[in-house]
């Protein structure tokens, strides 16, 4: 097992170098130079241009810039936003809880509905429930989620007035962000209605962000279950006279869940990297919105640092998923 972990981690080194290089080279690939790109149509005097180039270190040799970029990253310095003058890492850490909270809720939504639906559809293969739920899953899988979000806003916020249109919390409530998770903070604050407000703000984004993972998980659970139900050990368990519940719940489910867990993990990694579309539609102050705002504002230091951080998250989560996979599936370790 140790050798397996070591080989996995070693494989990450070239990927890490590649990722850092991509994030680094991106600013340098922009037409013109980054300072001019930042100035946009306003333009600037040659002296100021020179000064800024030196300040950001853009006039040094490219390999030197890259090494110092790497050096800084290892010291936790992901650059300073040109627009807000705040450290990229600090901004990231402030916004990340919002994204994390949303992605955990979305994944819970997807798992709680998706896995039982998939199991039930597989067990009752060909039934009306099977056809209906898989039909819905395919629609969910094909959904342009930015449009889905708008539809839900029209219905639940515009017509029914059940939920707010956007944001994380009503402005009338104010409390110190202790954990950064609105659900927990609002409970701690004890402000009447604050928790309710946090929940009502979360519902629509959770559904929108969870829709595609839900569809993927339901479909995959069903097909994994179908595959497992045809295996010899399931037939043996049935032949032994075990109850249907036990055969499905223990013998089949344990094995069917292996690929599903992988999918959940990989999806989670992508969700945590920021849900650009969902966060944009609901003005959710998370990583995705932060990145798209930085791109729109041409704040390329943020884009560079953000890309790096986001890729690091995806990489770490994928590594954890790989290792978990080896834990639940001993066949992998031996290879």
């Amino acid at each position, binding site marked *: 097992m140790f050798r397996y972990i070591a080989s996995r981690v070693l494989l990450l080194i070239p990927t890490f170098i*590649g990722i850092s290089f991509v994030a680094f080279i991106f600013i340098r690939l922009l037409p013109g130079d980054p300072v001019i790109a930042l100035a946009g149509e306003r333009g600037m005097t040659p002296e100021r241009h020179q000064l800024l180039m030196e300040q950001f270190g853009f006039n040094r040799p490219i390999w030197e810039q890259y090494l110092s970029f790497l050096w800084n990253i290892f010291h936790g310095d992901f650059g300073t936003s040109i627009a807000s003058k705040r450290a990229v890492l600090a901004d990231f850490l402030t916004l990340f809880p919002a994204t994390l909270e949303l992605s955990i809720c979305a994944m819970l939504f997807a798992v709680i509905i998706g896995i039982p639906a998939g199991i039930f559809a597989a067990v009752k293969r060909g039934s009306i429930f099977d056809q209906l739920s898989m039909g819905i899953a395919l629609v969910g899988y094909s959904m*342009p989620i930015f449009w889905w979000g708008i539809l839900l806003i029209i219905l639940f916020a515009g017509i029914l007035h059940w939920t707010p249109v956007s944001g994380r919390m009503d402005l009338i409530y104010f409390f110190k962000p202790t954990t950064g998770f609105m659900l927990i903070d609002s409970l701690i604050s004890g402000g009447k209605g604050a928790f309710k407000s946090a929940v009502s703000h979360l519902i629509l984004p959770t559904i929108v962000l969870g829709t595609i993972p839900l569809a993927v998980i339901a479909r995959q659970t069903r097909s994994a279950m179908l595959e497992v139900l045809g295996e010899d050990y399931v037939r043996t368990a049935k032949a032994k006279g075990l109850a249907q519940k036990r055969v499905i719940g223990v013998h089949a489910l344990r094995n069917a869940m292996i690929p599903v867990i992988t999918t959940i993990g990989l999806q989670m990694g992508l969700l945590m990297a920021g849900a650009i579309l969902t966060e944009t539609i609901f003005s959710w102050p998370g990583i995705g919105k932060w990145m798209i705002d930085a791109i729109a504002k041409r704040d390329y230091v943020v884009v560079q640092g953000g890309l790096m951080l986001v890729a690091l998250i995806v990489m770490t989560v994928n590594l954890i998923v790989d290792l978990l996979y080896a834990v639940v599936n001993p066949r992998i370790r031996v290879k």
Partner: protein
Amino acid sequence: MTNEVSPPVPIAAAQSSGRMARFSEFWFYFSVNKGAVIGLAVLVFLLLVAIFAPLIAPHAPYQQYREALLTPPSWQAGGNSMFLLGTDAVGRDLLSRLIYGARFSLFIGLIVVTIAMFSGVILGVLAGYFRGWVDALIMRIMDIILAFPPLLLALVLVAILGPGLFNAMIAIALVLQPHFARLTRAAVMSEKNREYVIASKLAGAGHLRLMFKTILPNCLAPLIVQGTLSFSNAILEAAALGFLGMGAQPPTPEWGTMLAEAREFILRAWWVVTFPGLAILITVLAINLVGDGLRDALDPKLKRS
């Protein structure tokens, strides 16, 4: 597999009848799946709409009717039979724009999948065939692409290349290509040591011939399925880029861009928001239905059940 020894006499005839037989076998398995057949029908319909857009569309897509801004669909109060699905904020006929939009979406999907498949398959074949450092290099590059969330990477690429439909297509193709590379590599690796490959190697076939004429045709089934999935993905991503203002630029009647333009009217004029999204959903759904059918028909593992 395709390399069966065919009887020596009427080679051409045997080949064409073999092809027919294989197609009818494929169609037999494909048509079992009713959803797939419906999806295919919808897709063909959309394709015809796209091709004959100038003949079908009641109005020109850019024509503005200043006296009919935000007209509701014709069946609703205040609707006008001239504009079946209503008009947008500057008085353009929604139906006509949607019809022209089909051209963009299908074209985007086609081009993106072609680019992604072409480059991904070549890289995958090289990696799977040569192994060693070629394999390691190509696969690490693919890992790097996959370490970024696809939409974010596409957005950043478009920021470098400049917003626009063409650049968006290149960005999406680049993001989708690792899937083809990985799939091709795995398929090539499993075919590489089969007897027919060794036989043709012994007969003196060169690397290029072995890679692309001997091995590749036997790896096509999973690639076709992945191609359909990427086709629908490409349409979704392009629409998302358009929606975020980084894809096709207004006034192009691209569905995602139309949605972005309509965003401020969501509570006032439901039709300008609803129909473009519905068009995207129907198109993507049809393609995914076909994809599911193709997978069932081409996957030998499922055939036996």
